[in-house]
Every structure is written in C-alpha cells, then in structure tokens.
C-alpha cells in the first residue's frame, strides 16, 4: 500500500475546521461591515443640543408596581420639558450588564441618568462617571461609603400612607384581623408594616395584624401565595409591599378588601379595592431635570413622603364607602397632620413586639431610627426572617 495516505488523512479533518473558523469570521465582518457603511449615523447632534436624560429599569415598565411608578415620573419629565430634552429608557436585568448599559448611555452623551433599582447600585459606581448626574432611589452605599458628588438620592418611606391604610383596613375587616405582605425585610418595608399596624390599632386596639415576608421582590406567584396564606389564616383585609398587583387579584377573587401600592392598581380587582398608597415622583424628577438644564444641579438627599407630596392616599376604592364616617373623619384629620409634617406615625408610647418600650409618650422616633428600623411593633403576629 502506498504511503501517500500517511499525511493526507490526519490533516484533512483539521483543514476542514480551520476553513470553518476562517469562513465564519469573514462572514461576520463582511455582513456587519456592509450594514455599517450603508446605515447613516443616527447620533448627530441637533441644533441647540437638548439635554439627554435616561432612565434605567430592572423590570418592564408596565409591571403595575415600582417600575410603573418610576415610569410615570419619567412621563412627567417628558411632558414638562418637551423638546428641550431627549429621553430614552432601558430595561436591563440586574447584573454586570447594568455597567454596559450605563457606559453606552454615557458614550451616547446622556448627562442625567435615573437609576431606579437598589441592585443597580451593586454594579454602577457613580464615581466612575464624573461628568454625569446620577439620581438614585435610596443610597445604598456599598461601592462607595461616601456618596459621590455627582449623585443625588431620594428616600421614600410611606409609613404615614400605610398608617391611614391601616385605619381604613381595620374599620372594614369582618374577621378582626388584617394582614400585610412585606416582601424583602428591609428597613423601610418594616417601617411601612409598623405604620400599617399602628394605624389599624388606632381604630381597633384589639385588632390582630398578621405580617409575612416572601424574601422576593417581583415574583407574581410567590406574592399571591403569600396573599392566600394571609387570607387562609383569617386576615379580613390585606396590604402588600411587593411590586405588581398580584395579591390584589387574589383578594378580589376572595372578596377581601385590599390596599394598592405605588401606582393605581384597582383595575386588577376593582370590586374589593379599598384604598391605595400611591407615589408621585414627578416633583422629584422635575427638580433634578430643571437643575440639570439650568446648570445649577447639585448633589442632594431627599427624604420624601406625604409631607413632600410624593405620596398620596387614594380613596377611590369601591369599598371606601364601607368605612364608617367617624373613621373617615379621623383619617382625613390624620392625613392633614402628616401632610403638614406636624405628626408622625411613630409617636410614643411605642412598644416593640417583645413588649420593650421603644419611645415614651410625647416622644417620636427621629428619621434615622425610622430609616434603620429593624423591629416589629407590639400586636403584630409574624417574625422578621433572620439576617
């Protein structure tokens, strides 16, 4: 047998593979190259350069929850400033790709970027983008203990809104029990849950307040599971701090009054919608955009709630009529006090779940105690998950 087979065999397979690789790369470059030359560049600057503003979301902006409330703020900005600004938004799942998105926005000349989610702060370090103003919901301070100069933040705690909701819920429940789904056991959720409990206890001191944590922010089925759990356990009215209107749907199906949150959600279960603690972030976003436009933007930290008008109490629920007139009056009065900043839900005497006195009569918790709250008030049935 001739020796000519010797080399030919082995190498033919390798040739095939290198041919594949070369062909592949050539194709990719050719195809993309073609379209590069043809496409006109779309990033030319218009005459008087409008301010470029961008919003970065972690979930779709139609989740009827946190991101929808943020999106309403964005629409407010667009409506107000029109052609003076050019606005875009991106939905990027949390992770290193947040940095990719921000880098591409900065490269495209965006000067004002709203980061809407906590987790984005694990990746995007504002200090790395000095020329850009970055507005964040709550400053988590992981990457940089000190807040960089190009960053501002607003801190929403709706304990006051949920106090009113607690009063309304306590007044309509038929089982002497109300329930709240807390989602992640973070400080402002605990403050809102305690506000809800204190409001309910103000109307009915013997009321039972059930508290449950799902440790999950955006899963519809987990939140609904928790809602079923509360109702099965006897809750006659429920509120929830998870994003999305899932639990409201379950409550409506079982005829249990429910409290909406962040954005108008009553369409999901209108017949048993009681009331809503709604956000209005327009004033915040408008202030930042105006300052950026006029070049007077400085870093600031806002601590917002009813007093600043960013939280409102919606009484347009079908079941609102079942709230006794006396309680309606008390709610209205309390709301005026909250809006004028003369009262806070956490005025003494205030006891922790364990019975320990937190603050004596006549004294209220100060803002840092609220922002770092890690306890449940007396009368609440439920435990904060460890950690």
């Amino acid at each position, binding site marked *: 047998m001739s020796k000519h087979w010797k080399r030919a065999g082995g190498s*033919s*397979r390798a*040739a*095939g*593979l290198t*041919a*594949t*690789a*070369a*062909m*592949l*790369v050539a*194709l*990719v470059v050719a*195809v*993309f190259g073609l*379209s*590069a030359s*043809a*496409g006109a560049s*779309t990033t030319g600057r218009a005459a008087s350069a409008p301010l470029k503003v961008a919003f970065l979301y972690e979930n779709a902006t139609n989740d009827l929850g946190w991101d929808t409330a943020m999106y309403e703020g964005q629409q407010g900005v667009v409506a107000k400033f029109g052609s003076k600004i050019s606005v*875009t*938004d*991106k*939905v*990027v*799942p*949390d*992770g*290193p*790709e947040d*940095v*990719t*998105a921000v*880098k*591409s926005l900065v*490269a495209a000349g965006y000067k004002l970027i709203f980061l809407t989610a*906590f*987790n984005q*702060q*694990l*990746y995007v370090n504002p200090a790395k983008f000095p020329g850009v103003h970055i507005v964040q919901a*709550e400053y*988590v*301070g*992981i*990457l940089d*203990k000190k807040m960089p100069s190009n960053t501002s933040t607003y801190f929403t705690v709706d304990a006051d809104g949920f106090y009113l909701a607690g009063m309304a819920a306590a007044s309509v429940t038929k089982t002497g029990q109300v329930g709240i789904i807390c989602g*992640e056991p*973070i*400080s*402002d959720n605990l403050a809102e849950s305690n506000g809800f409990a204190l409001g309910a206890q103000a109307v009915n001191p013997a009321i039972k307040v059930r508290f449950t944590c799902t*440790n999950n922010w955006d899963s519809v089925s987990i939140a609904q599971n928790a809602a079923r759990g509360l109702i099965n356990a006897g809750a006659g009215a429920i509120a929830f701090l998870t994003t999305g209107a899932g639990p409201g749907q379950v409550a409506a199906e079982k005829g249990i009054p429910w409290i909406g949150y962040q954005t108008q959600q009553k369409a999901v279960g209108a017949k048993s919608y009681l009331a809503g603690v709604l956000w209005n972030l327009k004033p915040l976003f408008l202030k930042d955009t105006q300052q950026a436009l006029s070049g007077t933007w400085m870093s600031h930290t806002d601590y917002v709630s009813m007093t600043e008008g960013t939280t409102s109490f919606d009484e347009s629920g079908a079941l609102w009529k079942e709230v006794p007139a006396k309680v309606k009056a008390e709610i209205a009065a309390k709301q005026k006090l909250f809006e004028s900043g003369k009262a806070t839900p956490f005025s003494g005497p205030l006891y922790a779940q364990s019975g320990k006195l937190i603050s004596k009569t006549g004294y209220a918790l100060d803002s840092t105690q609220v*922002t*770092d*709250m*890690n306890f449940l008030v007396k009368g609440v049935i439920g435990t904060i*998950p*460890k*950690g």
Partner: protein
Amino acid sequence: MSAILPAIPIRLEKRTERTPSWVQAATPVGAFLFAFVIVTVILLAGGHNPLQSYNAMLQASVTSTSAISQTLVSATPLLLTGLAAAVAFRMGIWNIGGEGQLYIGAICASGVALAIGAHGIGLALPAMILAAMVGGALWAAIPGLLRAYLNANEILTSLMLNYTAGLLLDWLINDSNSYWRDTSGASAYLVAHGKTIPGAANWPAIGGGNFSVPFGFLVGLVLAALLFVLVRHTWLGYQLRVTADNPGVGRYAGMASKRNFVIVMLLSGAIAAIAGASQVGDFTHILDPTGLQSPQYGYTGIVVAALGRYNPLAVVISALLLGAITNAGINVQSATFPQSLTGVIEGIILFCVLGSEIFSRYRVRVGAEKATVAA
C-alpha cells in the same frame, strides 16, 4: 432515505464517505446567512429598519475599542460555560448543569477572596480559580456518579441541580447570616447583599485606555487551546473519545468507561465554575444572587457550544459572536427595540445552525428516486 417534504422531490441520502471539508466549512456559513434573512424579515415585521438596527448593533459591539471591551464582558462567561458544555457534549455527556456549577464556582471563589483576598492578587487569583474548580467539579460529580453507577439520566439530574444551586445562592445572601453576607453598616438593612471582596483580590484586566480584556477571557482562551490539544492530541482524549463513541469498546480495550465518564463531568463542572469565579473576580466583586442568575450564562453556554459544533477553537468564535449580540441588544434597546428581540435573534441563529448539522451527515438529492414502473 426519507423525503423531507413528500411533495417537493428532495431526498436525504446518507453519506457513505467522509464529509468533504468544503461542506464542513460551508454549512455554518449557510446557516448564518439563512438566519440573517429570517431576522431581517422579523425586524421588518416588527417595524424596525433592519439596516439601522444592524448598524446600531454593530457600533455597540465591534466598531470601537470600548465597544469591543464591552463585548468581551458579555463574552467571557459565555466562553467559559461554552467550553464546559463543549467538552461534555463532545463526549456524548449532556451536562446541562453549567448554570448551577457557575453559581457554586462564584460561591467558592468569593469565599476564598473574602478570606485571603487581602494578601494580594498573586495568591488570591489562583486560589479563587482553584477553589471554584474544586466546588464546580464536586457539584458536577453528583450527576456524573449517578449516571455512571446508577445509570440516572444526567440531563435531568444536572437540570434539577441548577435550581438547587440557585436556591442555595439565595439562601446564603437573602436568608441567613452566612459568612458571605454583609451585615455591617446601614446598607445591610436597605438591601440584602454580600460582602465586597477586598480590592486586592479584584482580577486585573489586560490592555490600556478604553480597550481592556478581562482576565477571565484570557483564562478561557488558554483553556480552549488546552482542551483542543487534550481532545485531539492526547491519549487521555483518545480514551475519552472511544468511551464516548462506544462504552462497550472502551471496556473491551480495558478503558474504565465509567471512570472516564466521571472525569469528563468533573472537568466540565470545573470549567463552568471558573465562569462563576470570573464573574466575581472580573466584574461584580461581590456575591450577588440576582446578578448571577438573571443572565442565564450556563444555558446560553450550551448554545455557544452547539454553534461551535463542540470544537473548543470554534467555541471561542461563537462566544464572541453571542457576546456581541447580547452586548448589542442592550445598546440598541429602547422602547421600540425591546430587549426580548435579542432572545428571539439568538434562538433563530441556533435553530438554523442546528438544522444545518444534518447536511454534513446527509447529501441532498433533488428529483424523486427513479422507480419506473413498466407498463
């Protein structure tokens, strides 16, 4: 012989000789062209201007150095999980557990980084990679041993382990005071998060200015070369190929097919775990459950391996390609170009390349078989 569509006289005839190399080269290219056509049609149907979209995608991923660096950020995990899947699938072992092995790698690497990171990168980096490889290999050993000794289907066991690993990750950060969780400072109560690894343990990126190659990508390139040599040119690779092709022949020739099966599984798990270590070392510098779970690098790695026909060198190219597409998808994304379109485009490309596989095993004959029936 079976007709593709009885109506159209196209028949598939099994090739009885070796596939000519021009066919081996042309099939993937043909597949990409076909995918390109379908994607263009979908873009038109969705009301996008294809050329504009392609241009924007191009600018986001290839034309500028910073774009290329960003592409490498997405491509690095895909290269590593791609190689992990390629080495396993090439040996006929369906390791779908890359995703879970990635999480375990991240957990081990961040644990080691937190412990000894302060002693400088010289010690931290190798330790992180080693720890991740050990963790990933052990996690992959479960489906490996169950399949080798109990004949349990490794597709499903590795799939179930992905979810178990994800829940372990959530538990470590969200639900327990584990070593990984940062419970100090006010931020601990704002959002549950892990401890940031010491600065010294951050992996270096190579290259200056706005062009930088993540260290993990270089590890991937080295691994690709090593795997290519291992599979094609070493006697261990030969034994693995024989036992993969036919375990009976392996036993007949005195090769421990069960042991080889487990070796490949451990190797695949270890490589996938390096992707986890690279995410912590190169990019996130923190153990973050959502950041690791949302991009689904483990599953996309299988796509990368399939596109590269399980050949380590071709996997480098397909990883870069998918990295570019993912990266471009983020940049092009706006209200009119939703992020979900990237998933659709990736799916179409994979289906076309997968479908083209058949043409290397079969020859297409046009015209029905001449079954002339005499009057």
